[in-house]
């Protein structure tokens, strides 16, 4: 219903005379898609781009729903994000990490689900990923994500130190139109265990660590980009090893109101269950 409402709003926005508050004035796919944490970016990596299609004179927004099917778990995420004046991005996402039948094996009970709320903010500092084709430097943004997990008792039981935490990141994104390639690199300071789904800090390591997120995408046409991503993660908990994550993706924008991202994602070992890789699908609707 929210999706329908937003799409209708976007339809009326694009028909309106400029200048309009919602102009959908940026080029297709240049706002990226929605990450699993709700920020504008790839699937795993937060980018420096401001989400939505709003220009520096307007506001863009979108909703997303993401589903990841792993051998022993399911991850669902849904949320909303707004980009203000191609400068500031604010996002909210709820993640649900469903242990399904694995929950019983972990002693949590079948269908035990960790819920996590993520509130994100991102500010563009300098550079323009699209226009600055004659300059060497990328678009650079800084961001923060406040994450609050609803299963504090379990988090503490497995050695986690906190059920909430804040990630800080700096992201650099550049579109190389000559090569039809987009590159992104992000450094994140974080204490999150499995994105925060298993809490923050741990018995093995309890300090912030710098982690890396990288994306490389090739634009096949106006509507379709394919690419790869890698994201390193801390390994803070003694009871289970945490590994880095990877994905290969295809993002298809039907138009500025609807895009779908399909990926194959490898999240490594999660809570002693190894080789958690599977299909990822994400829908984004907005303007």
């Amino acid at each position, binding site marked *: 219903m929210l999706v329908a409402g937003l799409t209708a709003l976007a339809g009326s926005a694009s028909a309106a005379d400029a200048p309009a508050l919602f102009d959908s004035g940026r080029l297709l796919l240049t706002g990226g898609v929605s990450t699993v944490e709700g920020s504008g970016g790839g699937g795993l990596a937060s980018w420096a781009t401001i989400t939505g299609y709003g220009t520096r004179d307007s506001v863009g927004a979108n909703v997303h729903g993401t589903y990841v099917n792993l051998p022993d778990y399911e991850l669902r995420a849904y949320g909303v994000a707004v980009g203000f004046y191609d400068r500031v991005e604010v996002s909210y996402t709820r993640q649900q990490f469903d242990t399904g039948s694995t929950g019983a094996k972990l002693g949590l009970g079948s269908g035990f689900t960790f819920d996590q709320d993520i509130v994100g903010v991102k500010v563009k500092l300098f550079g323009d990923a699209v226009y600055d*084709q004659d300059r060497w430097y990328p678009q650079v943004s800084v961001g923060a994500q406040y994450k609050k997990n609803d299963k504090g008792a379990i988090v503490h039981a497995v050695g986690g130190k906190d059920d909430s935490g804040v990630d800080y990141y700096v992201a650099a994104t550049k579109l190389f139109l000559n090569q039809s390639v987009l590159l992104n690199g992000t450094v994140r300071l974080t204490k999150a265990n499995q994105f925060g789904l298993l809490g923050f800090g741990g018995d093995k390591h309890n300090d912030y660590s710098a982690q890396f997120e990288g994306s490389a995408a090739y634009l096949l046409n106006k509507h379709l980009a394919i690419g790869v991503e890698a994201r390193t993660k801390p390994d803070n908990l003694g009871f289970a090893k945490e590994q880095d994550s990877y994905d290969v993706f295809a993002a298809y924008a039907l138009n500025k109101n609807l895009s779908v991202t399909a990926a194959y994602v490898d999240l490594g070992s999660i809570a002693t269950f190894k080789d958690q890789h599977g299909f990822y699908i994400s829908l984004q609707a907005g303007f």
Partner: protein
Amino acid sequence: MHRLTTLALGATLILAATGAAAQAPMVMPAAGATPIAGDAVYKAFHEQAGIQRIMDDFVPRITSDPRIKDRFATTNLDRLKLMLVQQVCYLTGGPCQYTGRDMKEVHSSLGLQNLDFNALAEDLQFSMDKEKVSFPAQNQLLAKLAPMQRAIVTK
């Protein structure tokens, strides 16, 4: 002695510059960018005839696009088309000269926004698609046009 050296150096530079101009394409700052090296992109645009067809499609497209059509209310459209053909021919590495005014001067009084600039780029993509210009070649031209945003968008 010192002055003589300077003079000699100056003369050498002028000779070198003249020699270079005979081989390399003429530098035309008004065109807003240096041309793409080689003629592969020019060929991908189907040379002058293809660029002409693109602009035959593009000019009616931008002047009927509800987002930007009012921007061309007082524009001489025949001249606009001629200048666009020259500019794109030149920038794609074709054997053309751009005889128009520079980007900043042409657009300074229009108060254009990013929306206008991007809408025009989208329309150009449609016209290039219609001419069946390959996507990588389209992007190579867009890479030359994108930085002109700084000269063209003033609002």
